[in-house]
């Protein structure tokens, strides 16, 4: 393998490792509180939560910082999930999970979720600083 090809491979590994580690770290730090508040406490009526009313939800979603935060949270997490689930298949003896087509399916899925997230965030609530 040429030095150039080796360097390219190293950068590719660096990129995927960066996405995997940061996605896992971000999900570890913030996902439980989202699930607890938006998934349990809010629906049970124990506390007031932004996504329980249309006007508060749209208001928060219009904030560009919130849009960016949600994009980073969802996109990075999905790159982490893709990596973990693919290697889980390898651990279960599904050796085709190492192949390029399967890598394309898993990481391509993460890219697809990222694109859909961008589209949803840009088309759902107009950007506003109010």
């Amino acid at each position, binding site marked *: 393998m040429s030095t150039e090809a080796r360097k390219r491979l190293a950068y590719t590994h660096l990129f995927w490792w960066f996405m995997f580690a940061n996605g*896992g770290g971000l999900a570890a*730090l913030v996902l439980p509180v989202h699930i607890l508040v938006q*998934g349990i406490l*809010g629906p049970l009526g124990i506390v007031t939560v*932004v996504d329980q009313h249309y006007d508060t939800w749209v208001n928060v979603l219009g904030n560009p910082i919130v849009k960016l935060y949600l994009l980073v949270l969802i996109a990075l997490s999905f790159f982490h999930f893709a990596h*973990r689930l693919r290697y*889980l298949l390898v*651990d279960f003896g599904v050796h085709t999970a190492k192949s390029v087509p399967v890598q394309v399916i898993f990481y391509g899925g993460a890219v697809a979720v990222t694109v859909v997230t961008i589209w949803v965030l840009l088309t759902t609530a107009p950007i506003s600083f109010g």
Partner: protein
Amino acid sequence: MPAGWWLRKRHYFMYVVREFTALPMALWLLWLLFDIKGAGAGAGGFQPPRSTGFVVFSAVCLVFAMYHSYTFLKLAGVIIHLKLLDRPVPPRVIVFTMFGLWALASIVIGAVLIGFGR
């Protein structure tokens, strides 16, 4: 590896559970995306998440998400190598800091999600 290897030792089983946490967390984030999209339906079409089924689903996802957080942040001491004033930061300090960050992030995000609600 033989089939069922992950059922032979508790350590292997917990490893598989740790890796599996990705699936329920992914499903919950897909729901969050759906919830965000719901805001585009307009005031008349918006349906806030309140069903019992959704709460049960979230409770299950929360267990997996907490396990992911615990195992991932605990590993920080092994993965992250920092030096402060030319001396390596002890792994337990890094782990303690990560768990502190988890608590802080939870308080801040929880306050935003609840504080902006009505």
